[in-house]
């Protein structure tokens, strides 16, 4: 059969459309079997060439469709045209040169590449938007080292008159964010971790574990504002209860811990879900090795299972932190809004970065001159993104430090 194959003429197998339809009753193996080992693959340069052609053609089409009067590059249209042309070009050339299966493979490969590019676009756009204004705000003197005490419309009016640069800073918001997040983490991680331990190590798919799994899923859907309302109400109730039995309690429910409790409601389900996954991938062999040494289960979990999964757990916790560190609505309701540094989560108000951003963005200090507030807002957003990035990085470093060493050969 190998000699009949070197021909370049399309065989029935590679022809689509009416001719193919007529062949319906042919032996299916014919369709399946390639005719030769070679010639069934596109060369390496094919995709890049195709993409280049599509970009050029897309540009031409865009020019064609654009208003002739005043020419400007319509990026969106260019992208759409180029993408469609690329998909079509690659598909039909492959269809003609090889066969339908290869063409379909090519099509999907390009669709997937395209999805990736599409996902990157908003990321780049958001980061650019934030960075361009944000860096400017970040370079203002004292932005990271001062708070907003005494920064008001007069201060911004001074900026407008050129008396000084943009005043004020986010020290209090950074500290507030960190404290509230740390407290929320201290509440959520033990609860979440223990729960996932229960789910993975102890429960054997009983009703309790199914209920927990289900309601943890439900919990991921609690709107953050509801969590905030709940946090405030719960703390108020708790304080009045504690007060009525004579415990010394803070007089006000608006404080850092209240916010941390509200955030915990949002954080716990994320911690449970991710750590559960991570515990499940710890090989059973390790648990058995430990049991076989006569080690009790709780020690095995604490000293073998968790250390082995620690990198994954760290990554999961970071994800959970990233999920809540950007929350606005619940913080405003539970921790108030402060203009100065407060280190005490059990007394007094606190501000976090998202609240600060929201505040500066929706209610600029100066009634008509908004630039300084917007600059502070974008710069704070940049700082927040950097903090989250740093957290991610730290988690990854933890992951590599504690990660079980791979068998080196």
């Amino acid at each position, binding site marked *: 059969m190998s000699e009949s194959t070197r021909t370049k003429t399309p065989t029935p197998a590679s022809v689509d459309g009416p001719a193919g339809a007529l062949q319906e009753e042919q032996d299916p193996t014919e369709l399946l079997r390639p005719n030769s080992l070679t010639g069934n693959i596109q060369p390496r340069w094919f995709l890049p060439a195709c993409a280049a052609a599509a970009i050029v053609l897309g540009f031409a089409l865009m020019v064609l469709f654009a208003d002739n009067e005043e020419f400007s590059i319509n990026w969106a249209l260019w992208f759409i045209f180029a993408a469609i042309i690329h998909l079509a070009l690659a598909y039909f050339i492959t269809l003609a040169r090889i066969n339908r299966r290869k063409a379909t493979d090519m099509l999907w490969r390009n669709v997937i590449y395209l999805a990736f590019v599409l996902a990157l676009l908003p990321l780049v756009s958001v980061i650019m938007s934030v960075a361009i204004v944000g860096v400017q705000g970040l370079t203002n003197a004292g932005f990271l080292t001062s708070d907003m005490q005494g920064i*008001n419309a007069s201060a911004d*009016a001074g900026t407008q008159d050129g008396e000084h640069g943009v*005043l004020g800073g986010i020290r209090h918001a950074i500290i507030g964010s960190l404290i509230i997040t740390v407290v929320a983490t201290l509440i959520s991680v033990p609860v979440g971790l223990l729960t996932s331990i229960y789910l993975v190590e102890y429960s054997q798919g009983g009703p309790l574990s199914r209920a927990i799994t289900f309601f943890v899923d439900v919990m991921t859907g609690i709107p953050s504002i509801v969590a905030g309302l709940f946090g405030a109400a719960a703390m108020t109730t708790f304080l009045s209860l504690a007060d009525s039995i004579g415990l010394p309690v803070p007089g006000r429910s608006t404080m850092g811990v209240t916010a941390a409790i509200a955030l915990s409601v949002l954080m716990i389900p994320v911690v449970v879900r991710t750590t559960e996954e991570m515990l499940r991938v710890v090989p059973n062999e390790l648990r058995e090795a430990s049991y076989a040494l006569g080690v009790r289960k709780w020690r095995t979990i604490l000293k073998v299972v968790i250390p082995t999964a620690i990198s994954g757990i760290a990554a999961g916790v970071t994800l959970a932190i990233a999920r809540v560190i950007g929350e606005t609505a619940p913080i405003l309701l539970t921790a108030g*809004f402060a*203009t100065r540094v407060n280190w005490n989560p059990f007394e007094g108000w606190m501000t976090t970065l998202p609240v600060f951003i929201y505040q500066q963005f*929706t209610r600029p200090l100066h009634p008509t001159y*908004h630039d300084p507030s917007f600059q502070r807002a974008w710069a704070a957003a940049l700082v927040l993104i950097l903090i989250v990035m740093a957290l991610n990085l730290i988690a990854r470093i933890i992951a590599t430090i504690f990660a079980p060493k791979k068998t080196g050969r």
Partner: protein
Amino acid sequence: DDNGDGGNDAEENGSTTENGANGGGEGGEAGGDLAGAEDVSGDYYGGGASSHETAMLEWIFAFEEQSGGAAVEYASVGSGNGRSGFLSGEYQFAGSDAAMSSEEYEESTSQCGPDGAFHLPTYIAPIGVAVNVDGIDENLNLDADTLASIFSGEITSWDDEAIAEHNEGVDLPSTPITVVHRQDNSGTTENFTEYLEQASSNWEWEASGDWPSEITSESAEGTGGVIGLAADIDGAVTYADAGRIDDNFVMVNVEVGGEYTELSPEAAATAVGASDRVEGGAPNDMAFEIARDTEELGAYPIVQIAYTIWCNEYPSQEEADFAQAFAAYIVSEDAQNLASDLAGSAPISDELRDEALEAISQISAG
């Protein structure tokens, strides 16, 4: 920095009395028994209306400078939350665009002593109707009925006859009208719709902090949001705290008593002066029922009064001292002028101030 001004003024004023503080100085004139700012220290909290925010930040800073180490925070959590927080004891004072309801007053008697809480009008803000239309460069003249028709979506184009009638000689473009309103529940919306409801028969909705949902138009979050959005749309009209309207807009002069009144702090104060008080609160209460349909010449009736709400009786002497000192400061001439300069509010009149200081002197510790 430039906030030194406040301090300087304080010194000038205070030179007549022993204490150098503003509030104390004024208090001295009125009753002589008000606590002075320099006696106040510790942390205090207030919360509520966002309309107050600009002025409040100024006041707080100036007050803290004069005080003996007080720290004051004000959270713009909204009037409703502000009052709730005040009534539950979270805040020493509340800022509110609307007066307490009778139930709330009832509730305050358990928190604030037998006389309950009282309102001080601390921030009188005219609400401007702002127009952003290419080709209209001067203030428009309109009456309440036309405004109602515009905001309800009945009039859809700027060259509509109803508008032209009031603006003879102005070349009105045919730009379609885009109404921009507040998306969040707000005191500004409540006061504006109250004006439309009472001053016009064309407005069929009840006054409310929520924009009537039947009217579909553009909306945005917060005063800054509507201003920002309206500035981007040719043909936009919106309503907002006058002090926040920048020069992207022209304003509407409102017909009152047959003449078109231009927005100004004085015109707003005139409208307040023509208004009645709300009955049934504490003896020293100063809540207003603004006369939207006043025919008094020179009055600008689209006005919002933001109150600060205080207890007549505080649990501790420190809190009472703080309340007296801070409340006296924010009704002082300096504080009111500071707010007027920066936020475009109307300073309260001297009569109101005297009445306020009298009310403030009732604050005691229980």
